[in-house]
């Protein structure tokens, strides 16, 4: 247990020392919010069902943070640690493999949550963002979305033979998802044809779920999202465990 906590703490410090990871997780989405907030403001808009641009963007950007940690942070760091022989060295200690994975996931989860925190603070203080949901309900949705995508991130790391390939696969998968899921650009601006494609992108379900819960909708209205993300989580976990390699 002591090893697990210590490793989690060290992993978080290492994460924060990586400028790219820190930027995309903590700084990128608040910056995006400031940019679009400056352009469009946060006035109630019938286009967004009476909500403002910022009110809609904040829950959507949570998906953006999740995807950048899952598809850019996790695969690269995990594959690079494997490639360099870091995992090999850890394996020579009495640290249990499960303890390694748990502390790893926990540190990413905390960093993702920190990114959400930064986003919410900017939305609240600068634009007086509205929040009509239940805190715990939103938290649960955030946790489900994060863990489901983390599992996919570990799967990419396991399947890719090198860190460079993990990086390429992660990027190629992440960018279309970012733009087509409604996480970076609201789905409302897309024509129906694009939205038909979006439905098949897993990240879209994170966006839909977060926006819904944020606006105070109940989980009963989001059974589809729950099923899809639950399925991604379970299948992702099984596959990533199957493909995980220490060296």
């Amino acid at each position: 247990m002591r090893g697990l906590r210590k490793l989690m703490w060290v992993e978080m410090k290492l994460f924060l020392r990586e400028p790219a990871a820190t930027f995309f997780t903590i700084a990128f989405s608040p910056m995006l919010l400031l940019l679009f907030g400056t352009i469009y403001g946060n006035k109630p808009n019938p286009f967004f069902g009476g909500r403002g641009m910022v009110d809609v963007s904040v829950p959507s950007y949570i998906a953006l943070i999740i995807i950048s940690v899952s598809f850019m942070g996790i695969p690269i760091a995990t594959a690079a640690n494997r490639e360099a022989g870091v995992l090999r060295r850890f394996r020579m200690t009495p640290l249990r493999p499960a303890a390694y994975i748990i502390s790893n996931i926990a540190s990413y989860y905390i960093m993702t949550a920190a990114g959400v925190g930064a986003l919410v603070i900017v939305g609240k203080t600068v634009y007086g963002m509205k929040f009509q949901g239940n805190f715990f309900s939103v938290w649960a949705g955030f946790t489900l979305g994060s863990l489901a995508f983390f599992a996919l991130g570990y799967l990419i790391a396991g399947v890719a033979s090198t860190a460079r390939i993990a990086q390429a696969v992660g990027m190629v998968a992440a960018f279309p998802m970012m733009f087509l899921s409604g996480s970076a650009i609201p789905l409302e601006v897309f024509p129906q044809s694009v939205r038909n494609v979006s439905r098949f992108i897993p990240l879209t379900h994170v966006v839909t779920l977060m926006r819904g819960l944020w606006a105070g909708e109940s989980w009963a209205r989001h059974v589809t999202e729950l099923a899809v993300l639950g399925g991604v989580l379970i299948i992702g976990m099984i596959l990533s465990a199957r493909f995980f390699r220490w060296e």
Partner: protein
Amino acid sequence: MPVIAVDHLHKSYGNVRAVDGVSFEVSPGEIFGMVGPNGAGKTTAIECLEGLRRPDEGRLSVLGLDPQRQGYELRSRIGVQLQESSLPDRLKVREAMGLFAAFYFRSADSAALLEQLGLAEKAGAAFGQLSGGQKQRLFIALALINDPEIVFLDELTTGLDPQARRAMWDLVKSVRERGKTVFLTTHYMEEAEQLCDRVAVIDHGKIVALDTPQNLIAKLDAESRIVFSVDGPVDMDLYRAIPGVTRVERSGDRVIIFGRGDGLLVRVVMALDSAKTRFRDLRTEQPGLEDVFLALTGKEMRE
């Protein structure tokens, strides 16, 4: 009671028999070395002992434990320096020590270890900024952090300059003086000769000799060489007449005297002196493990 017992260890990768029927025992408190050229099977053997690789055949016991089935228990009692491993570049030396200490139930004093390994000043430096020698010393510190009973060192000094290498040897000796058993692999014959109480010479996955370095060299009964330069004429017959000398070679002003037995050097120097021969650059070359390897396998060790 041996701390390591290996009985007919076999491990193949595809058609390559990396380790092919190796048996030996290691006693507590000794420095046991496995020497041989790259690709001889040393790393495969040591990684089987560490529990990192599963042997195809054979029985292994380390501290009375099976490295495969009781790996968890074993890992808390051994210290390991791997040939290929790394740490995250941005991890600081002090953090690495603290992190690894947290993995074990008992841990040595990490500040004292860093001090002893000459890393105290680097405690705040990131792993990626360390030199090759410093990284290697950090890995040794990590291998000692749990105050282990056996320390495994795989190609400890590869890539180090001669000075760093000698410093590393002193370090290994000090580890043994603290009552630990050391199991190491090396492809430097001189290293094995300087460090090991006993060496297993390994080639193509098989042990071709196992003894103390002194015994291996003595058994070889190889000639030692005395080399020097002279100015002016040389009376070769004078040298041939010295007791113990087997043959004499000359090229230009360099003379090489081959011979056996204690006191050969004294007799040669006395003969030179009484003949009033002016000589310079005299040195002796003793047979070493290098010669043992050559005699046993018929090939030169590289490097």
